[in-house]
Each structure stands twice: as structure tokens, then as C-alpha cells.
């Protein structure tokens, strides 16, 4: 593996994205709106009461953290990998003396930096206006970091193996849209997982989607007891192993089929 080349690619992509930050700020604005809607709806609904154990300020805190976590774990690369395969542009990556994973990784890193430049000031401003209630304990803060890292890796590799199905089917990105809908429902966006109806909640806890967004937010906002925390980590790690395995298998088998259409 050529790691020095990989680092150079990451730096170059980062610099190039910063050049076009206006464009990426507009994208980030669009992604911020859905969680923001649910922040406003739930905090209005809570009013002076508590709903499912959360009061108004705690809803605000939950969704403000969710806006950041959702953007940090969102992999827009998953949408572009399929296009690279369909339009035959994968050639350029395959002839490089680098793992093609670095290409994905470089836009991931560049994306996180540029999107955070937009999201962080807005979240801070919203926090000043909406007065969230967040009591961070050292345990929550320390466990938040690995849960966020694992969430990003899980969401990235889960999307990656789905995107690589483009080696076989031209419209594999329809499956990515299904994944986005499931994340919206089951990963704590439409409501914190604890507030979902019982049936939906057990589905959400077993499936991988909660561990891509909602789980780290629940960890930081202190919604989980010790057993909930460790089962969460176990399921998150388990799904990550599955996602990694699938990515490797689909890549190995798929790249042999690749015939550089239109290249």
C-alpha cells in the first residue's frame, strides 16, 4: 500500500474542495434541514412537558448533536463511486499506484472539513438561540468518540458495498435511496429511537442503521444505561465487521467484471 501517495491525494482533494466551498455550503444547508425540522417539531411538541423522558431542552441538544453527527458520518462518496463505475471513469483510479479506497477516503476527509466549516457556526448559533440542555459526563464524552468513529466507518462501508453493486446493475443507487429512507426512520432522525413505537424500536435496535447516526448521539446525550451502551457497541462492531467483509468481497468479485464502459 502506498500510504504517502494516499496522504498527498487527501491533501490535494481537501485544498480543491476548499476552493469551491460555496457550493459545498449549499449542499450542507440542504442536509441540515431534515434534522432541523424534527428539532423544531419535537421541541414545540414537548413545550413545558416531557415526552418519552425528554424535555424541550434535551430534544434541542439531541438534535443539535445529531445534525453534526449526521453530517460527519454521511458518505457522499457512496453516491459517486457508482457513477465512476457506470461512466468508465474507474480506469483513472485503477491505473494509479494507490488503492482506489484512497480516492473515496480523500473526498471523505475533504468533505468533513468543508461541511464542518458550515455546520459548526450554525449549530453554535442555534444553541445560543434555542438553549439546549446537555449534561456531558466524562463517561459519555469518552465513549462518544469511539462510537462516532465506528458509526462513520459503518455508514461508509455499508454504503460502499451497496454502491459497488454498480459493477452488476446500472441503477444500484436506488438501493442507496432505500438506505437513506431507512436511516431517516430508524437511525433516530424522525424521532430518538427510544420514542419509536415498540415494534419499530426493536427493529431499529437490531438493524445497522441506528449505529450509523443515532447511537453516538444517544451516547453523548446520556440516554443509555451501562448495559444499553455495551450492547450498542457490540452490535455496532458486529455490523461493521459484516460491512467490511461485504465491501472486500464485492470489490474483489466486481472489479474483475469491470470492463470500462465508454472509457
Amino acid at each position, binding site marked *: 500500500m502506498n500510504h504517502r501517495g494516499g496522504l498527498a491525494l487527501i491533501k490535494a482533494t481537501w485544498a480543491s474542495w476548499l476552493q469551491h466551498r460555496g457550493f459545498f455550503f*449549499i449542499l450542507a444547508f*440542504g442536509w441540515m434541514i431534515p434534522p432541523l425540522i424534527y428539532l*423544531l417539531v419535537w421541541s414545540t411538541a414537548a413545550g413545558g412537558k416531557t415526552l*418519552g423522558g425528554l424535555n424541550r431542552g434535551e430534544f434541542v441538544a439531541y438534535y443539535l448533536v445529531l445534525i453534526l453527527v449526521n453530517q460527519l458520518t454521511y458518505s457522499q462518496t457512496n453516491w459517486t463511486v457508482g457513477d465512476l463505475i457506470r461512466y468508465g471513469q474507474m480506469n483513472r483510479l485503477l491505473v494509479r499506484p494507490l488503492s482506489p479506497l484512497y480516492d473515496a477516503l480523500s473526498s471523505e476527509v475533504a468533505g468533513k472539513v468543508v461541511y464542518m466549516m458550515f455546520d459548526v457556526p450554525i449549530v453554535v448559533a442555534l444553541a445560543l438561540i434555542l438553549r439546549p440542555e446537555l449534561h456531558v459526563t466524562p463517561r459519555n464524552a469518552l465513549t462518544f468518540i469511539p462510537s462516532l468513529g465506528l458509526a462513520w466507518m459503518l455508514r461508509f462501508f455499508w454504503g460502499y458495498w451497496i454502491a459497488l453493486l454498480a459493477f452488476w446493475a*446500472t441503477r444500484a443507487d436506488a438501493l442507496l*435511496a432505500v438506505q437513506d429512507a431507512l436511516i*431517516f*426512520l430508524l437511525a433516530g432522525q424522525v424521532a430518538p429511537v427510544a420514542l419509536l413505537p415498540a415494534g*419499530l424500536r426493536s427493529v431499529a435496535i437490531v438493524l445497522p442503521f441506528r449505529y450509523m447516526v443515532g447511537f453516538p448521539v444517544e451516547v453523548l446525550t446520556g440516554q443509555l444505561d451501562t448495559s444499553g451502551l455495551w450492547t450498542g457497541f457490540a452490535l455496532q462492531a458486529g455490523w461493521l465487521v459484516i460491512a467490511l467483509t461485504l465491501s472486500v468481497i464485492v470489490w474483489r468479485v466486481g472489479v474483475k467484471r469491470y470492463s470500462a464502459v465508454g472509457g
Partner: protein
Amino acid sequence: MRYLRLIVHFARASFQEEATYQANFYIGLLHSLLNLATGVLGVMVLFGQIETVNGWNLTATLALLGVYLVVSALRSLFLGPSLEALAGMDGEVWTGQFDFTLLRPVDTQFLASFRKWHPFALFDLVLGLGVLGVAVTQLSQTLTATHLVAFLVTLMAGVTILYAILLAFAGLVFWSPGILFTWVFDGIFQMARYPLGLYPGWLRLVLTWVVPVGVITTVPAQALTGVVSVEALAGSAGLAAALLIGASALFRFGLRRYASASS
């Protein structure tokens, strides 16, 4: 009459174009059903926790979601595809293809608004009407003719407001061809999924007076579920007329700035 005949021809041509791609049909089906499921479940989860919020209960909010789905379907049926073809890096204004639109012997605004159709959106329209129908059967009071008339008037006003906003954005494309106005508007328009009453006061004002997307869905839903004042009725009709005139003026003014693209 001539314009109506032209619309029929445009719609038929678009239908033939779309019918060529059959795989897209099933993917579209999937998207529509996911959109419906996430919308309905979002409302159900909220009202699983609480009975009413600021006067909105499950039935009224479901009716509003129905209005939102109907209006969105009308948007993607023809307004969206026609006007969005102008904007963006591969849009007609940037590439200079708008020359061909200008040269046709019909009114440019008419042609720019009605030429491209997305017949599949009729399916979304049916789903939206279905949600509305379910909400109406759940209503506690019976539906009178007055309700229906008020609903149709406000719905027409809502669609006109939406058209005016999209037309104004399309007009701005003549100043800045590459900007993603639609992406920004999509984000804001999503807020119309929930009643204005579920947002904090300052945002209610913004969504009524600055970017009146709230009026598009909230007023028709109120008219149908039986709590709309004559002032709101006249107000939304007046707003629709004013915005339509303003947006048409902006579009025509922008049109004069169009200077084709260098070849």
C-alpha cells in the same frame, strides 16, 4: 386553446421519452412508496407521543401531509422538470441551449413553465390524494360543500404560490446560472411537511411572509379540517396573485439579461 393543445403535445412527448426507460419505472415506484412511508410514519411517531400540538391533531396533520404530497406531485409533474432545466452547470442558460426556447413562436414564460413533463408523478398524486382521503374519513365533523370549495381555492392558491416561487428562482438563474437555487428551495420547502403551528413563532413569520412555503400546505389543510377564517382565504389568494405578478415580472426582466453562450 392553442396553449392547451401545446400542453397535450408536450405531455405526450415527455411520456414517450420516459416510457423508454422501464427500469426507471420500478425505481420511481420504490422512491414514491418510501417517500409516502417516511412521511406517514413521521407523523404517526409524533402523535404516538402526544395528542395535540397547538391545535393540530393526528387527523389534521395527516391531511396536511396529504396536501404536501399532492403539491409536491404537481411540482414534479411539470413545474419542476420544466423550470429546473434552466438552472445549473448543464442547464440551458449556462450552455446557451436556451436559444432554442427563445426562438420558438410562443410565449417564453409559457414554454419555460410547461414544456417538460414527468408523467410518473401522477402516481405520487394518487398516493397524496389517498392520504388526504384517509384523513378526511377520520375527521370528526362531516365535510360540507363550503369546506370543499375553501379547500380547492386555497389549494389552487398554494400551487400558484409554489409556481411563483419556482419561477422567481428560475428568473434569478439569468443573474447566476450555476447556483443551486433548487437545492436551497427543496430544503426550505420540506418545512411545509408540518403545520406552521408546529414551529416557533419567528419561523412561522418567516415561512408566512418571507418564503411563504408554509402557506402552501397549512392553509388548505386548515380549510379542509374546518378552521379557516375568511381573512386567511382572501389573504392566501391575494398573496398568490401578488407573487405570480411579481415573479413573472422578475422572470421577464431576467430574460433581457440572457446573452446566449459563447461558442
